[in-house]
């Protein structure tokens, strides 16, 4: 039988913990992939996730006499979710949109963004204290942090927001 039946009872909590970390990090990735409309990776992670899950849950439910098994299960579940989020951040799949509102250094910021090789669109806007520049730039998620740091170096007072966007059409994309 596939499962943890052969494992010594004292190792059981650790084994359950590890399996759960694996299955929950896959599950978290899966949900984030679904949100971004990535079908194939979502299928693969879903398949692996449920296979691991069955092993973990049957091991716990047939060994409820040991409190540590339950602790291992719950801690693995919680930790796996966070591990999945960290992995997702590292992979940074998909695209984002960064919007910068700058009161007086808009053109300098736009120049810097272009010099860094990204496309940016400038709009004139009116804020509470007069005219402002609104800059929007769409880029790969993994480039967002770098660009944000650069923007804040030039105008530390600018207002910066980040959104995720679904894949889009045309425009200027840094290769």
């Amino acid at each position: 039988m596939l499962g943890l039946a052969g494992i010594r009872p004292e190792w059981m909590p650790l084994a359950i913990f590890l399996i759960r970390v694996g299955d929950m990090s896959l599950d978290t990735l899966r949900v984030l992939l679904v949100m971004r409309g990535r079908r194939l990776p979502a299928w693969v992670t879903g398949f692996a996730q449920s296979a691991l899950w069955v092993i973990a849950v049957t091991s716990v439910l047939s060994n409820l006499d040991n409190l540590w098994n339950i602790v291992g299960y719950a801690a693995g579940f919680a930790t796996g979710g966070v591990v999945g989020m960290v992995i997702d951040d590292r992979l940074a799949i998909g695209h984002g949109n960064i919007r910068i509102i700058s009161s007086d250094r808009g053109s300098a910021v736009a120049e810097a963004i272009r010099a860094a090789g990204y496309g940016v669109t400038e709009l004139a806007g009116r804020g509470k204290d007069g005219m402002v520049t609104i800059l929007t730039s769409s880029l790969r998620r993994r480039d967002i942090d770098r660009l944000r740091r650069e923007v804040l170096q030039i105008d530390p007072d600018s207002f910066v927001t980040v959104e995720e966007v679904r894949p889009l059409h045309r425009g200027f994309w840094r290769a």
Partner: protein
Amino acid sequence: MLAISRSVGIEWSGLSPALVFLLLFLLRAGDLTLATLRMLAVMRGRRLSAWLLGLLQAGFFLLGAAGLLSNLQNPFNLLAYAAGFATGNVLGLSLENRLAPGHSLLRVISQDRGEAVLHSLWKAGWGATEMAGRGQGGTVGYILCYIPRRALGRVERSIQQADPQAFITVQYVRALHGGWKA
């Protein structure tokens, strides 16, 4: 009665069928409420909340699942489990709407009362930026306003007061830096 037995979990055999039913429902509803909250925390990138909610949720799940499996002789228990699942989902969503963490972007398009909308937002203490746009019926005011999600209802009402015809969309934003705050 509701003793946590040595074989960790709830001692189900001593409970009346009605109590088993209720307990299964509550455990499952708690599980799914937490699961929904956790999922939304994951989407917002809130790691600590996701971890804590996950820990609690797994506990509920194990108690509930173990209970269901040892009480399968009564088919109503399956119903309790399923109803708990469905209820928890809804509960989680409405709870999250109450707590409303994070920020939203309001995009307001106003035919000819953009100025009034802008000033009502400023007066209420929100930062708002206006751009000129062109729509089918001429120039329109195009206003961006970032607010805490919690304030959404209030802000929406004050915009509608300034311009009942305003077109408003709400969007979730993930990260914020700087900006004008009251």
